[in-house]
Every structure is written in structure tokens, then in C-alpha cells.
């Protein structure tokens, strides 16, 4: 059964919830109240905003290219949403069963930059044009370390299928002879029997722990989140690439921004943090792992695995939101320098280190 039935409604709910959470967290950090008027503690605010955006006039500037101006936000949303097709929902409810899953997801996420560039460039506005150029330069900066940090997982997992990668990181993982299941490389400690956090990629193969930190930073750059939100930095570029956008077209841009956030954190959870597997290991005499996983094939298993996957992803997003409201923005050349001088060599080194680790534990 296609995961579209889950992801389409979930994404809309997520964007409403994330919008509210973002404003409340910002208010909490800045010692304000945030939305309070609509509904109980302002909970109705995102719904009110949605209706407001729906009935706002969509203004297309006279200088802009009409067709591309309207279609660019739709294009961005379609490509980012289509990237969700390969993500699993639970252990048994998997995404599109293609063998090229992770590569496909990265490719679709990259196409977003094209749409953002077109949206900014076609607005025929000076701020939007600067924002559009920044989208492209930032894309050139983050794409390589992003692919390389994903590659370091591929060296371990030997597959691009996200469902299979998630399945390798839990209790009773399917035995893949060349993938070491030894904890920290110690021979004899087989974590497939223990499960829990011990068999997640970050602990099973320690270089991947550093790799995840890299991935987390790069996902902030890829989602244009502060401290890397240069393409839309409101204090210098008004709105960056979406300066001219209003009404529904603006709503698509916002929707895509939050979708991208969810996409990247879900990818990170599946690649590094055990996907839908429980963080509790099965200790001798205390099977915490089995208690929090449910028997395979039952409804309980569906609920536990889906619950863990999305709890982890939402926690990561929470951290990203706190980062957004506490860190100052980097200067543009600092972003480029960070990505090319530090993240790219580090990602290359980590690939070699992971390779060395896998070779040592191969036999």
C-alpha cells in the first residue's frame, strides 16, 4: 500500500503543528508569549493563518514572468513531496521499493534548489535576485558534504534502500554477512541480539557518530535554516527569494520549507539513528527492547516502529528550532568556507575511516 495515504495528511498536520511550535519556541527563547488569541493558548493560530493565506490576493508583479512566477512554488513543493515516496512509515509499511532509494531522495531534494532559484530570479526584484544567487551558491557548498556523509553510511549498509538500512539497525537484524554486527568492533558482542541504541549505526560503527554530526549541520544548510538561512535572511534581503510572493504561492514556499525540514530529519534518523527501532536494548532478564517493539507483523509493531521513527524525527526538528532562535547568522563567505574547507575534507576523511573500520571488523 502506498505511503502517500500517510504522508500527504501527515505533512499538512506537521506544517500546522511545526508553525505553532516554532512560534511558541521563539517566544519562549525571547521571553514573549507568542500566539495566544485564537483558541486555547493560541492553538488555533496556524489554522487561522492557513485560511488567511488562502483568501489573500496573489499579487504577481508586473515585471515578473507570470507563468514561471506561479509555477515555481508548485514545482518546489512537488519535487520535495515526491522525495518522501521512498521513506518508510513503519517496519512493515515501506515506501516505494526501489533499489536506488537514498540516491533518488538526494536527487529530488537537490531539485528544490532549481525551483527556488527560478522563483527568486523570475521575480525581477533586486532582493529576490540576490536571494536566488545565494540559493545556488549555498547549494554548491552543501551538496558534496551531504552526499559524502550519506555515502559513509552506504559503505556500512551496502544498500541504497532506506527500508533495508533501517532494518539493519535493530533487534534480530537480517544477517548481512559483510556488515559487522559487533558493538564498537569488539568481537563476540553481537548487538543484533541486544538491539536498542547499541545497534543503531552511530554506535555500531563509531565513525558514523561523527558523520551524523556532519549530516546534522549540513541538513541545516540544505533546509536554509538559521544559522544558514542566507537566501532568505530577512534583516538584509527583506525576504530573499520570496520577497515578491504573497497568498497561496507564499504558502507553497512555506510548506516546502517545513517539508524539507521533515525530509532531512527523517533521512538522518533512518540512516544513523536506527529508523523505527526502539532505543532500549534487551538486557539479560530485562527485555526492554522487546517490550517497546511489539511482535513483528502485529498492529503493536506498526504503532511502536512508526511512533519511534516520528518521535525521533520530531525531536531532531525541535533541536533545529532551538538552534534557529539561539544562534546568530553566519556571513555568506563563512558558509562557503565552512562547507568547502572543513565539512568536505572531514566527510572525505570519515568515508576513509568508516572503510578502514569495516575492513578491520570484516572477518
Amino acid at each position, binding site marked *: 500500500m*502506498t*505511503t*502517500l495515504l500517510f*504522508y*500527504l495528511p501527515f505533512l499538512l498536520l506537521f506544517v500546522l503543528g511545526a508553525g505553532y511550535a516554532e512560534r511558541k519556541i521563539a517566544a519562549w527563547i525571547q521571553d514573549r508569549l507568542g500566539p495566544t488569541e485564537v483558541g486555547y493558548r493560541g492553538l488555533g493560530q496556524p489554522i487561522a493563518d492557513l485560511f488567511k493565506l*488562502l*483568501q*489573500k490576493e*496573489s*499579487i*504577481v508583479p*508586473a515585471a515578473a514572468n507570470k507563468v514561471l512566477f506561479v509555477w515555481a512554488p*508548485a514545482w518546489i*513543493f*512537488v519535487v520535495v*513531496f*515526491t522525495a*518522501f*515516496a*521512498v521513506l518508510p512509515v513503519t517496519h512493515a509499511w515501506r*515506501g*516505494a*521499493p*526501489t533499489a536506488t532509494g537514498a540516491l533518488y531522495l538526494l536527487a529530488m531534494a537537490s531539485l528544490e534548489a532549481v525551483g527556488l532559484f527560478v522563483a527568486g530570479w523570475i*521575480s*525581477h*526584484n*533586486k532582493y529576490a*535576485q*540576490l536571494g536566488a544567487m545565494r540559493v545556488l*551558491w549555498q547549494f*554548491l*557548498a552543501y551538496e*558534496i558534504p551531504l552526499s*559524502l556523509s550519506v*555515502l559513509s553510511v*552506504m*559503505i556500512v549498509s*551496502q*544498500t*541504497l534502500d532506506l527500508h533495508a538500512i533501517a532494518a539493519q539497525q535493530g533487534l534480530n537484524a537480517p544477517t548481512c554477512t*559483510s556488515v559487522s554486527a559487533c558493538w564498537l568492533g569488539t568481537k563476540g558482542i553481537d548487538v543484533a541480539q541486544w538491539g536498542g541504541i547499541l545497534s543503531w549505526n552511530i554506535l555500531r560503527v563509531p565513525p558514523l557518530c561523527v558523520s551524523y554530526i556532519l549530516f546534522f549541520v549540513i541538513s541545516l544548510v540544505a533546509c536554509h535554516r538559521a544559522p544558514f538561512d542566507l537566501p532568505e535572511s530577512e534583516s538584509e534581503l*527583506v525576504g530573499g527569494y520570496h*520577497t515578491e510572493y504573497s*497568498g*497561496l504561492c507564499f*504558502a*507553497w514556499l512555506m510548506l516546502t520549507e517545513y517539508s524539507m525540514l521533515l525530509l532531512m530529519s527523517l533521512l538522518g534518523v533512518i540512516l544513523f539513528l536506527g529508523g523505527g527501532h526502539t532505543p532500549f536494548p534487551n538486557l539479560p532478564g530485562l527485555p526492554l527492547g522487546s517490550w517497546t517493539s511489539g511482535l513483528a507483523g502485529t498492529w503493536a509493531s506498526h504503532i511502536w516502529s512508526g511512533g519511534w521513527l516520528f518521535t525521533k524525527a520530531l525531536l531532531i526538528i525541535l533541536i533545529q528550532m532551538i538552534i534557529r532562535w539561539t544562534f546568530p547568522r553566519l*556571513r555568506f563567505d563563512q558558509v*562557503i568556507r565552512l562547507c*568547502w*574547507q572543513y565539512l*568536505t*575534507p572531514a566527510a*572525505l*576523511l570519515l568515508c576513509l575511516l568508516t*572503510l578502514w573500520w569495516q*575492513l578491520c571488523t*570484516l*572477518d
Partner: protein
Amino acid sequence: MMGIEQIAFLEILTFIAGALLLVGLGSLTSALLQPNLPNEAKLCTYESGEVPTGGSWGKFNARFYVIAIIFMLFEAETVLLFPWAMVWANPTLNEATEGLWARYTAMSIVLFIVPLGIGLAYMWRQGHLASTHPCPIPPTFASKVPKAHYEQINHRYASTPRRLQHIQKAK
């Protein structure tokens, strides 16, 4: 008869259809609800409230072009690395060669990655990755004309800007 890959991409097609459906429904609802009252001021390009001057497609600094070239190089490299990662420790091949396969593939990729790393280090050393921050160099040219002459000319031809004239008249 469809293979598993065709089924997968059919599923991806349903995602495209779902996204387009949402875009269509949203646009339809919005079209029914929103007013459409364009006027000249509304359709004007936003430029901080000023009347926009000139187009936006002017010159921009392309000083990052070297990075774009390095990007192409590394992107091609990444494309080659992904298929390698799929087969480098293939269990069947590894068993058939008694573990030699993984060692040889690992060695070959190290020989591939290390020169690239050296290339990156070279670019760093040449300053292509770091010089993106503009450092203006003040000109060292010493003019034969004394500076006071320029100031004299400036003073003589300095006229009050038009937008300040009424203030002067009031005085």
C-alpha cells in the same frame, strides 16, 4: 508483468499526482476565495517602498566560479563512489576470493579518494576556497595634483540637491 522497480516508480508517480492534486485543490479554493483587484502600485516591484530604479538583472559578482568548477569535479566523483559502495564488500565475491575482493576494492578507492583530497588541499592552498571574503586593497597611487585642488573644484561645483532646496529656501 511488472518488475519491482516499475512498481516503485509507479508509487513515486502517485506521489507526484498527490502533490499536484493538493496544488490544484489549493489553487481552486484560493481562486474562489481571494479578491482580484490589481492596481499599478500593487503590481510594482518591491524596493523598500521606493520607486524601483532599473531592472534587477544587473551585474553580480561571480567570484565563486572556481567553487562551481570544483563542485562539478566532486559531484562526478560522488556519482562514481555510490556504485562502488554497493559492491565493495559483496559477500559472494568476497567468499569466492577469500576476502581479497574487499581489500582490493578498498585499496582502489583509497587511490581514488586521496588524489582528490590532495586536489582539494591544493585549491585551499591556492586560496580558491578562502578568498571569497572581499578584502579591498587601498590604492597606493600618489597623484601629482594636490588634494586641495580637488576639494576646491568640489566646493565650486557643489550644488544643493533638489530634494533639499526647499529647506534652504525656508531658511
